[in-house]
C-alpha cells in the first residue's frame, strides 16, 4: 500500500507544473501505469481524492492509462504484448526477449484551463 506516497508525488508534480501557468486552473492530470508497476489504480484514485478533498485541487481529474506488459524479440525485433507471461516471440518463436513495457509509472501530461486568455500575466516570461 504505497499508493498514498505515489498520490503525493503526483500532486507535487501537478503543483510544480501549475506554478508555471499562473492564472490557469489544473483540470486533469494524465498518468501512465504499467500492468507490472505494482500500483493499484483504484487505490491510487482513492488516495488522490483523499489528499485533494477540500483543497484547491479538489476538481482535478485523474486520468490513468494502463500500459500492457510488452516484450521485444532480440532476434527479429518484433514487439508484442505478453499474454499469460508467454515470453516466446509469436513471429519467430525465439525465447530471447526483453521487457519494453508494463513497468511505467509516469506523469504524462497536465491539462490546464485558461481563465484569462488575454491576461498578460499568464504569458509573462520569468
Amino acid at each position, binding site marked *: *500500500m*504505497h499508493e498514498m*506516497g*505515489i498520490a503525493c*508525488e*503526483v500532486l*507535487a*508534480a501537478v503543483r510544480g*507544473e501549475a506554478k508555471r*501557468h499562473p492564472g*490557469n486552473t489544473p*483540470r486533469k492530470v494524465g*498518468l501512465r501505469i504499467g500492468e*507490472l*508497476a*505494482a*500500483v493499484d489504480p483504484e487505490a491510487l484514485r482513492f488516495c488522490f481524492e483523499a489528499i485533494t478533498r477540500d483543497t484547491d485541487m479538489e476538481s482535478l481529474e485523474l486520468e490513468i492509462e494502463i500500459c500492457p*506488459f510488452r516484450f521485444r524479440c532480440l532476434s527479429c525485433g518484433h514487439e508484442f504484448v505478453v499474454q499469460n*507471461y*508467454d*515470453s516466446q516471440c509469436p513471429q519467430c518463436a525465439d*525465447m*530471447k*526477449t526483453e*521487457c519494453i513495457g*508494463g*513497468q511505467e*509509472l*509516469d*506523469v*504524462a*501530461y*497536465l*491539462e*490546464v*484551463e*485558461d481563465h484569462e486568455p488575454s491576461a498578460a500575466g499568464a504569458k509573462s516570461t520569468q
Partner: protein
Amino acid sequence: MNRVPLEQKVLSENDRVAAELRARFREHGVLCLNLISSPGSGKTSLLECTLESLPRDRRVAVLTGDIQTDNDAARLKRFGFPVKQITTGGTCHLDARMVERHLADWSLANMDLLFIENVGNLVCPSSYDLGEAAKIVVLSVTEGEDKPLKYPSIFLKSELLVLNKIDLLPYVPFDMNAAVENARRVHPAMEILKVSCLTGKGLHEWLVWLEHRRRAIKPVETEAVT
C-alpha cells in the same frame, strides 16, 4: 483547455536520490544489493549465514528495514560488521532517502559490500530504486510456487531469485520445477539459487555468486589505472 506534456517519472525525486547513491557506490567500488521478499522468507537468515561465513576483515555493512523493532539489526550485529536498522514506522518499503540518511555517518571508502534488507513485502519495494547494483528476491518453499505469477513486478526487476528453506521440501507441497518455470516465464534471464539457511545447502553457490558480483565492481580510479 491547454494540455502540457510533463513526461516525468512519478517517483522522479526518489530516482534522483537513487542515481546519486548509485554514483557514490560506483565511485567507491561498493557492491550494493537490495534483498526483497515476503515477511518470513528468510532474508535475515540468509544474511546471518552470509556474515557468519565471511572473514572478519571483509568490508561489509548491512542496512536492515522493518516497520517496527530493531530485532533484525540485533541478530545481524552479532557478527561484528556494521549494521544499522531502518525503522520506517509504518511505511511498507524503503526509499532512496531513507538509505541516504542512514548511510550519512558511514564512510563508503571503507566498504566493499552493502546489503540492504528491505521491508518484508513483495509489492511496494519493487517500485523504489535504492541505487542498488541488483535486486535479489527471496522466496521460501512454504509460500507456494505461483508467487512469481502473483507478484510479477519484483520477479521481473530482480536479477537473482534465492529459493530458500529447501530443507522443508519433503514436508510441503511445493513444486520446485513449477516455481523455476514460473520465475523464468516472468523473467527469462533470471538467475536462480536454491538454498537452506538451516542445513547450509546451496550457500556455497550463493557466496560464489556474491564474490563474482563483488569482483565485477571496481572503483573508477582502479579502472582508469589498469
